[in-house]
């Protein structure tokens, strides 16, 4: 186990800079998720930690030891690849024991560790099989087994679940989380899926265009997004955001007055008003809107409503009697509304 520290880390590919000075401290035993849209630099950051990409500037330290110039193999870290990258000509047993064999562990010790890891991952019946004889979920587990067996200081995951179908993804998500709780190994996990990030992370670093937009615990990001990017990236369905002017404790927008959190902003300031779908509920009075689409999901119902040609999403608990074409009133919860500066996008 170990702490990981990035200091002012930069990465150039040719003349393009893809990471613009990333500083991030990952605590010992922490499950850190790097999340962001594709091309935001999250995978590059992970690969730099893995030693698969050179560092242009800045430093990476594992347990206070700078590893910039260390080979991957000397960093004592293990990585699970998106494509699994299992050795096709080796059995599951040999795949898992490969790293131990390379560092010249004794055969009895390798067998023992592989057996123990296989037991944790329920891979015991498959040890003599080849990767091509396994299902996607099993291959994924072998890839994890290959990492666990080494007992490394840090686990790295690069979008490990994106090749699995939806159901399996949810199951593996829980499995990885449980594994982390059991092993307590520092983990850096890269994904573009904010649901994965929310459900698994101790802390999330939301990345965009080579910078960290916000760092914090999942619900902290959800409740207090630092800017528009984080506000709209975290949460599903995404937060409703529209432009307005702040006046007398409310935002004038879409031909109505939207109650705003108290003591925020300046009179007359152009802002962006953000409200999550579950904080916007139909009521007896409020902002008039027209229901366009009703999506019943059983445990909740999603309404697509229209106000002045702007579409908003409303999520209601349970079932709804509303029908398309119906006129309703929306009651925004002022305490849960978010204000962002119209120009900078920063939270007010």
């Amino acid at each position, binding site marked *: 186990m170990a702490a990981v520290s990035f200091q002012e880390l930069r990465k150039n590919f040719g003349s393009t800079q893809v990471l613009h000075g990333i500083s991030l401290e990952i605590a010992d035993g922490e499950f850190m998720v790097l999340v962001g849209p594709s091309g935001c630099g999250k995978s590059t950051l992970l690969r730099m930690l893995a030693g698969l990409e050179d560092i242009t500037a800045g430093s990476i330290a594992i347990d206070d030891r700078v590893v910039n110039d260390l080979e991957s*193999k000397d960093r004592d870290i293990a*990585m699970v*690849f998106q*494509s699994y*990258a299992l*050795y*096709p000509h080796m059995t599951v047993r040999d795949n898992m024991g*490969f790293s131990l064999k390379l560092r010249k562990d004794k055969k009895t010790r390798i067998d023992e560790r592989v057996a123990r890891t296989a037991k944790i991952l329920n891979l015991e019946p498959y040890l003599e099989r080849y*990767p091509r004889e396994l299902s996607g979920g099993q291959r994924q587990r072998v890839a994890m087994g290959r990492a666990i067996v080494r007992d490394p200081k840090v686990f790295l995951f690069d979008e490990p679940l994106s090749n699995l179908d939806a159901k399996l993804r949810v199951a593996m998500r829980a499995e990885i989380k449980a594994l982390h709780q059991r092993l307590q190994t520092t983990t850096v996990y890269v994904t573009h899926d904010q649901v994965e990030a929310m459900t698994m992370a101790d802390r999330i670093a939301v990345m965009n265009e080579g910078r960290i937009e916000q760092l914090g615990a999942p619900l902290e990001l959800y409740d207090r997004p630092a800017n528009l990017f984080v506000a709209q990236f975290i949460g599903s369905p995404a937060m409703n955001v529209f432009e307005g002017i702040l006046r007398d404790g409310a935002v004038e927008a879409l031909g109505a007055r939207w109650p705003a959190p108290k003591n925020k902003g300046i009179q007359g300031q152009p802002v962006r008003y953000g409200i999550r779908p579950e904080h916007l509920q139909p009521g007896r009075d409020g902002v008039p809107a027209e229901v366009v689409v009703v999506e019943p999901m059983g445990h909740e119902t999603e309404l697509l409503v229209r106000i002045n040609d702007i579409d908003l999403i409303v999520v209601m608990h349970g079932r709804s009697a509303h029908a398309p074409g119906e006129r309703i009133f929306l009651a925004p919860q002022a305490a849960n509304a978010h204000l962002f500066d119209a120009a900078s996008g920063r939270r007010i």
Partner: protein
Amino acid sequence: MRRFTREAGLWLLAIPILLWTLLPIYHIFLFSISSKDSAFSGALWPDKPTLRNFGTIVREEHFYLHHFWVQIWNSLWIAVAAGALTLAIATCAAFAISRLKVRGGRTVMNLALFTYFIPAAFLAIPMYKAMGAYELLNSRWSLVLAMVTLAAPYAIWVLKQASDKLPYELDEAARMDGATPLQLFRLVYLPLMTPSLVAIGTYALLLAWNEYLYAYLLLSHEQTITLAVALGHFISADDSPWELLMATGLVYALPPAAIYYAFRRYMVGGLTAGAVKA
């Protein structure tokens, strides 16, 4: 009806092609089991088929066959050495260019392709002079080196293409697992490249086995020539022993056929299945 016409068309095409290919081989076979007198009878099957010709060959009982065993050994030695050497050079080159991404790899690939603008026959005389300068004429090594020179560019090209198809994540996974480049080469790269390696090794081996022009130029002593060159000597006289020539030719054709048969499993890929997604 349409299907029938199509199939009939295919058969009409296939039968002549098959006859075209097999007739010469049948002709060789016919000669080799005929006695000297009946070889030119023109019959589709000899009156008295005989295996005597093969006995003559094995016991080296003819003027042209006095060194049969030495010559076939030469052929074999040269073919195996050329195959092995080509494979060693081309595999290392392909690994370095495709996996280690060494600088100048592209240039090497372009040069390899460029060598095919020059017909091998053009290089025969320069090669002869070069071998003479190194005092390698009449040594098996001269032909081995010449064959490796001719086979290596193509081998590098093919193996590089095959290497590129291996997922790069495998290399990264091996690096993370602690493999040095040499271990990566030995424990991951070579096993996965086996089908291509066997195919390319066979190619180089057969290229050398079948070579005539270079063998004829570089080797001239009866004890050093390959069987292919020795076969050429059969027709140097007015009264050639055709039945022995054909029988020896048939014997000479057997090893390549056997090699193809033995390695047919490797000629198809599929070993990388399961490495990555899909």
